């Protein structure tokens, strides 16, 4: 078979490029330890979430000195906790903490996407997604559902508030949510 010289060169260059991509991404995920969403968490029964040990009472749990777990239930059309607009609590964690989110869905497929970050995962009924994040600085983040889930999909949003470490108390009871007031008292 007669292959033109330039074509051979091009073929080699293309292969090098492809292998280069794969190497870069392998380094990015294995070398730098960026974890993917995977199949580590156990499955749940979406109809019996209320009876589930953790998802029965979703919310923030402290599991170590600076370590927290957050159980989130996505539903049509909100996040529990997270959806302030629907009258639920925001997700509140302290700065300088390592937070693992566990997310599942009660009904259809949703997503849990934190705007401006690479926290982005599907919430599939029966499956649990886990994402571990380090929150260094205080601040606020918006959460949105980026997987179409029905007629009210565009209203599905929520909020994460990262409090300064010394102002944080778990379960939100002692926490002042208005940033302005906290600024006055502490900063």
């Amino acid at each position, binding site marked *: *078979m*007669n*292959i*033109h010289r*330039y*074509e051979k060169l*091009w*073929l080699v260059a293309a*292969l090098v*490029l*492809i292998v280069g*991509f*794969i190497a870069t*991404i392998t380094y*990015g*995920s294995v070398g730098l330890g960026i*974890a*993917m*969403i*995977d*199949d580590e968490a156990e*499955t749940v029964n*979406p*109809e019996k979430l209320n009876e589930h040990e953790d998802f029965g009472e979703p919310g923030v749990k402290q599991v170590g000195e600076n370590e927290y777990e957050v159980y989130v239930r996505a539903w*049509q*059309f*909100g996040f529990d906790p997270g959806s*302030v*607009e*629907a*009258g*639920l609590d925001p997700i509140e964690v302290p700065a300088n903490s390592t937070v693992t989110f566990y997310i599942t869905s009660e*009904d*259809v*497929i949703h*997503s849990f996407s934190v*705007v*401006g970050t*690479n926290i*982005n995962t*599907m919430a*599939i009924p*029966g*499956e*649990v997604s886990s994402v571990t994040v380090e929150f260094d600085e205080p601040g*606020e*983040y*918006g959460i*949105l*559902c*980026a*997987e*179409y*889930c*029905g*007629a009210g*999909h*565009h209203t599905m*949003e929520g*909020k994460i508030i990262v409090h300064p470490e010394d102002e944080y108390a778990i379960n939100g009871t002692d926490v002042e949510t208005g940033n302005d007031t906290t600024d006055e008292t502490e900063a």
Partner: protein
Amino acid sequence: MGAYIDHFPREAKLIRSAFYTSFIMLALGGIFGVIQTLHRTDVVRFIDSADYYTVLTAHGVFMVIAFTIFFLVGMFTWAVTTSLERPLEDMSFSWLWFLMMTVGAVITGVTILLGFVESVDVSADVLFTFYAPLQAHPLFYIGLVLFVIGTWLAGADWFRSWWAWKRENPDERIPLPTFMVLTTMIMWYIATLAIAVSILAFLLPWSLGIFDHVNPLLTRTLFWFFGHPIVYFWLMPAYMMWYLLLPKFAGGRLFSDPLARVVFILFLLLSTPVGIHHQYMDPGIAEGFKFIVMTNTMFLLLPSFLTAFTVVASIEHGARQRGGDGYFSWLKSLPWREPAFTGMALAGLMFAAGGFSGMINAGMNINYLVHNTLWVPGHFHLTVGTAVALSFMAGSYWLIPQMTGRRLASKPIALLQVVLWFVGMTFMANSMHRSGLIGIPRRTAEPQYQGFEFEAALGSVSELNAQLAIGATLLFLSLTLFLWNMLITAFNKSAESPGENVIPTPLSGPDDSPAVLDNMKLWTAIAVVLVILAYTLPLASIVSRGGLLGRGGDAFPVSIDYLALFAQVALESAAGLV
């Protein structure tokens, strides 16, 4: 010699019908496209936001199921009959598959559109991905099944032509155009198997109330088993045009026949075992599987790189035949006034840009940043929305006269049309990619939220929206010009000869290439093995985790009930706040 219609008048009629049907689908898809763009950018809103998803389902299905595939069957029929130089074996069989496809498309289309009619309890607001537990009316799935069976029969028709030809020409190489059709159809048979199982074994019985549940991750994975190769099903007719027609329009001939065969074989082998790259963000699938799929996906870049080379080399050859010279000044010798040439060349250029954004999508860790943002429609409006759609429109400027024996109504308007599409898409794709990078989601009626705002790194969100709206308007204008031109051409009285229906023979022909390239059985077997390797473990794991029919979770027909439910939740939470 003469035009296609002079040789194959009966086939020309069938092909015409397929093309016209595809244009009607394109027109419908375009109307919904512009409505949804103006709605989500908040430029003009005259539909309810809840109806946005009916519009979006219609846009997706009419564009990428109906428009593209109706065009494909016309194109492939042209390619097989022209290159084997023989008519179809049995026209009534051919009309049967065409009819089946049409009936299927109409059933599915009407079911979707009934979503606008509140008094009828039929809807299918499930988007073209129909992820369960979102549920459509059973007719939506039934229409899809008919449509797909229609395409299977069409494939059988082309295989039948080839077998008949082979009996008469036992020692000849498969002509390249037919080779392209056959490999593409084998890929399609493998791919559609998954969607057939998904619909017939799970979704349809479930929508009819026979089962209570399905396993959402399973049906989603089966969708993408089919959903990635369908991308190449859209693309292959465009590639075929770039290999067979573009060199001819440029005044030359294809550079290399054997390499074209290699490219199509690579697509057959690699395009199915990669579907999980649409599920990087899904729980319940191990990281290792995602990694394997990513590697396959990167290798799938190879045939497209090879195509880029061959196409550019063939065009350059054409330009030099026309007297062009120099390193780059040969570009000036190309027939830029020919809409068919210019449209395809611009489509190819946009495909290169789409290829780059596709490489980003394929990287499994970078994907976190862009998954389900507007970046993704930005990417595929360059690929299917331009590389494919614009090539089809440009190709029609040559194909429709071939099929009708009538002169193209207006060449200048056709030229304006393809350029306008390019300009409109530049605006739209630029805006979509940039919006995606700042996190603006796709598939959202109102990407304006109460608790937070998107921050544009350059410019502003309103500037991005303005670009999107301008782009969409230009695209719609371009589409109107195209349809108008086709309409006038169809009724054009002048019976001027549209030129010869010939595909020039390639510079280096098939004869010195290994005969194994034409061994369809071998390639089919390898493709099947690769699919089995890529999917057995993930599917087994998904089923063992979630059960074949899922565990719990109700069906969610997307209909008015939901609004009621939503209103109730909103009221309750409002009450809670008070």
